[in-house]
């Protein structure tokens, strides 16, 4: 309780108690003296003495209390109040050190804290202003970029409201389809494909953050290929997305007509050529050279038409948007489509992905399933097909197989995609597949639909945009020695070799390189290649780096690999761990490569000596441990793994070099050269 009382009050009470105690003690002492005196004296003198002494002591205590209160308690209270004000108010008055002159070091210490707090606030305000300005400039540059991108771009919130659109989007979506801020995007695009794509991307466990699909305006007057990419919101899905639109209205009309003409022409010619060839095989040519020539030319014609047809099949519709879609996502989309129609189905699927226009295929399957609903529950399955490149979608039900004539009628009906000629048959043709009925045991029937299957692709993170707008301000005209470390571009690289002796026939078997720009290691800008050394790879070296003779069959030789690295490193400082070793291989083959590796070079072994002293361990493993860099063991001693380790270490070293006053390339290079004796040890 006492701790919560005002300081001055506590001090006053302390001195009051002291005064009272003094009076009691004086009174007590005088009484003791009087009571012991023999004979007993007149108490009046004792009382007078006691009173005088008491007043004198009280007066002294009061005076001391006043001094204490004036020069200690009150200043301490005032100082505490001022510190509280400084902590919470931004432009408070500075501390008055004079009023606390009797508090010893307390006042100067508090003053120092107050000054530091003020300085920190000023620094913070400057940093915020700087970052705000930088962000505003970046925003302006991005807006400039977006304005010039030759595609319509819409940014939408998680509830499908438009939050941004560029001028191209405004031109693509006109009149009643025009985009409006904070209005649903389904006002300018048909909602089915957009919602379907968004649903797929935001499902829990969805592997992709981007998908492509075909969509149209609600009135069907325009058709677009669209790419939807989720806008990251921390680790959560379900946020907004970016839509990139390309107008294919004319293309579809043009392509559709042209594709149909070409397909019909090829089909007709193929039939005629096949018939001609068949007829030519009906009879042997005999000895008549003219007849032999006729047979030969007929067969050549048939083969040529067949080849032409095969080439057409390979290249037809490659521009049609297709995406990798997990079987599970296809199932879920179909279930959502059919739920509103009151159709349910049992589903089973294997963990695989198909390549298709998801909305089109789901629309086709929904159309077929709706017509099968009278056959009881439908069992839908997606599993492996006849080959590794094929998945098979099957719909099973109880009943007779669908008659082909009826199936063709279903396939001739338009799907709900806003265009009359987008039928089920059209979707099948675009995907190069077909659908057919089969009879199953026990009175059941099936429809089969093969679709292309694909392995999951990795490295989705590498698809993000790469930028560094600080490059706008970088100086590019100063001499290399005067260039700031942050203003330079670097290429960190590593090689794996057949052995350690380039001068005695060892060669490179693998090269990897990454770029460092603006202090950032750019994982999206990389070189990673095997190299045919033109000699055998000793087993001992394979045990280190894992590159075998079989792996380098067909790989480029050092002349091409060297040129590739030279092009990749154009204008950059080369960085490697033990650079003389790697560079020796390229210098050895300079004539074959036809390019001079005259880039400036930094060696992280020597930089380690600059930073940590020559007696420390400068191996790459030791550096990684020292700087807290962790590279998976499986990646160590691969060219890319070691490049990643060296690059990560090097980026940290740049900061440490700057911290030690080596701000320019010249300063670092000069200091690095002093450590060259490390290679002579």
């Amino acid at each position: 309780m006492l701790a919560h009382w005002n300081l001055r009050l506590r001090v006053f009470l302390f001195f009051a108690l002291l005064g009272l105690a003094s009076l009691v003690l004086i009174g007590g002492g005088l009484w003791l003296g009087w009571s012991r005196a023999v004979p007993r004296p007149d108490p009046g003198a004792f009382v007078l003495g006691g009173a005088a002494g008491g007043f004198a002591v009280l007066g002294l205590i009061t005076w001391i209390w006043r001094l204490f209160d004036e020069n200690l308690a009150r200043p301490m209270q005032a100082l505490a109040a001022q510190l509280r004000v400084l902590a919470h108010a931004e432009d408070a008055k500075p501390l008055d050190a004079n009023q606390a002159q009797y508090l010893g070091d307390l006042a100067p210490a508090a003053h120092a804290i107050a000054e530091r707090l003020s300085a920190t606030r000023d620094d913070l305000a400057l940093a915020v202003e700087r970052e705000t300005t930088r962000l505003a400039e970046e925003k302006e540059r991005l807006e400039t970029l977006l304005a010039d991108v030759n595609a319509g771009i819409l940014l939408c919130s998680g509830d499908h409201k438009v939050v941004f659109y560029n001028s191209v989007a405004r031109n693509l979506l006109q009149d009643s389809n025009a985009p409006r801020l904070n209005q649903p995007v389904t006002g300018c695009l048909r909602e089915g494909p957009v919602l379907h794509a968004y649903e797929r991307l935001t499902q829990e466990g969805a592997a992709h953050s981007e998908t492509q699909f075909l969509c149209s305006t609600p009135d069907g007057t325009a058709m677009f290929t669209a790419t939807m990419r989720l806008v990251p919101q921390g680790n959560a899905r379900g946020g907004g997305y970016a839509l990139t639109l390309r107008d294919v209205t004319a293309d579809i009309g043009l392509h559709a007509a042209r594709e149909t003409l070409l397909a019909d022409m090829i089909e007709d010619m193929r039939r005629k050529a096949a018939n001609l060839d068949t007829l030519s095989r009906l009879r042997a040519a005999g000895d008549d050279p003219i007849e032999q020539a006729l047979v030969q030319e007929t067969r050549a014609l048939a083969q040529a038409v067949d080849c032409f047809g095969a080439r057409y099949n390979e290249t037809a519709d490659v521009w049609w948007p297709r995406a990798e879609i997990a079987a599970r996502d296809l199932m879920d989309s179909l279930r959502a489509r059919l739920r509103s129609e009151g159709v349910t189905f049992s589903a089973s699927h294997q963990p695989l992905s198909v390549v298709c226009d998801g909305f089109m295929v789901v629309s086709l399957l929904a159309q077929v399933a709706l017509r099968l609903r009278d056959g009881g529950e439908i069992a839908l399955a997606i599993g492996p097909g006849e080959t590794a490149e094929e998945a098979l979608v099957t719909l099973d039900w109880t009943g007779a197989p669908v008659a082909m004539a009826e199936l063709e009628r279903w396939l001739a009906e338009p799907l709900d995609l806003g265009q009359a000629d987008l039928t089920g048959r059209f979707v099948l043709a675009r995907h190069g597949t077909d659908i057919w009925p089969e009879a199953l045991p026990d009175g059941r029937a099936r429809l089969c639909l093969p679709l292309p299957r694909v392995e999951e692709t990795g490295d989705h993170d590498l698809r993000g945009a790469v930028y560094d707008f600080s490059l706008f301000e970088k100086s590019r005209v100063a001499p290399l020695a005067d260039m700031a470390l942050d203003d330079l571009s670097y290429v960190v690289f590593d090689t794996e070799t057949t052995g350690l002796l380039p001068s005695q026939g060892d060669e490179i078997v693998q090269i990897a390189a990454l770029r460092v720009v603006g202090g950032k290691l750019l994982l999206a800008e990389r070189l990673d290649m095997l190299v045919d050394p033109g000699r055998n790879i000793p087993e001992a070296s394979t045990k280190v780096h894992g590159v075998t003779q079989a792996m380098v069959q067909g790989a480029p030789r050092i002349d091409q690999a060297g040129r590739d690295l030279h092009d990749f490193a154009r204008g950059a400082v080369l960085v490697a761990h033990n650079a003389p070793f790697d560079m020796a291989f390229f210098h050895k083959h300079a004539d074959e490569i036809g390019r001079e590796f005259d880039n400036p070079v930094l060696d992280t072994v020597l930089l380690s000596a600059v930073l940590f002293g020559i007696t420390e361990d400068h191996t790459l493993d030791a550096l990684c441990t020292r700087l807290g860099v962790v590279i998976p063991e499986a990646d160590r001693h691969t060219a890319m793994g070691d490049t990643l380790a060296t690059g990560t270490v090097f980026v940290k070293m740049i900061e440490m070099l700057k911290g030690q006053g080596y701000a320019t390339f010249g300063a670092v290079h000069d200091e690095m050269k002093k450590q060259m004796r490390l290679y002579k040890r």
Partner: protein
Amino acid sequence: MTEESDTAPRGANILLVEDEVNIALALKFLMERMGHVVTHIDDGAAALAQVEALAPDLVLLDVTLPGASGYEICQYIRGCRALDRARVLVLTARGADIERRKALALGADGFMSKPFEMAELQARVAELLASPREV
């Protein structure tokens, strides 16, 4: 002209459904030379209407036909009890794998894509006619 094997079945009732006149002519000639009786129909709808009455032992069936596709005819034949023993050999110009799978799934007993060697066709026909179809 190739020589037929003396052990090959003869006298079978073959229905040829082919709309290409010259090919039909050649195939009819070949089948008749093998000793079979050939009925030629050049329209898919007409083939559907007549196949049950003709009760062929073997149907040589083109895919692309006017009126009804070869797939439709094949499915009809396989669904007709009276034609359980009829074999179906699908002939097509394209030969895409998906067409082969579709034809076989619909109950075709064989599939050949043009151009084919006459000897190969004769051998397939003989093979199909020699082995009774399991019902």
